[in-house]
């Protein structure tokens, strides 16, 4: 089981799911219509390190963070 958390303005409670890779996470999140407006704009971190590859392998207890567009300063 892995945990997916949604940061900043997305305003969605964390999800737990079975997923072997980030591609599995993508497939599951695409089924959620409340995320349609966000996924194309969001970056992804795995255990607080930014990731860029859908084939990234996940293990039990991993934490995936979904980061929407930013504007610091």
């Amino acid at each position: 089981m892995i945990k997916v958390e949604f940061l900043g303005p997305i305003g969605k409670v964390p999800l737990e799911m079975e997923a072997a890779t980030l591609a599995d996470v993508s497939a599951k999140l695409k089924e959620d219509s409340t995320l349609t407006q966000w996924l194309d704009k969001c970056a992804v971190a795995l255990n607080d390190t930014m990731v860029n590859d859908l084939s990234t392998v996940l293990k039990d207890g991993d934490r995936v963070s979904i980061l929407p567009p930013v504007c610091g300063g």
Partner: protein
Amino acid sequence: MELYDGPLDTKEIFGRWLDEQAESNYGAYIPFVGTIRAEDDIEALSFDIYEPVLQKWFDDWQEKAKALGAVVKMAHAKGDVPVHTSSYVSAVFSPKRRVALELIDAFVEDFKANAPIWKYDVRNGERIYAADRSTPMDGAGLLQ
């Protein structure tokens, strides 16, 4: 890296950073102050920060600065920051001015693009995500 609840005490922060480096033999110290402007009838801006990723982003910049013989510093506000107060300060120390001038430009621009901070307008006490001024981070769209 320093995070504060509410507006920054810019003079205290810049003065302290200057004192800390007083004997470090840096020839250049370039501070940057971000101040909340009164526009679009806002009372304040408000900020969410994801600290673990911000810390890693900042640590990477410390390494880049170190390779140039320089030091980068930053402080940012969390929560509400009223107009005409400061939400963000940063600075670069370097032996000579050219490195510091170029580094402050690159550091502040990458901060705007990739620091995991979310901005909201505050109007009539309501927090509204500043979607039109926000930028997708590097690598955005991976899960689409």
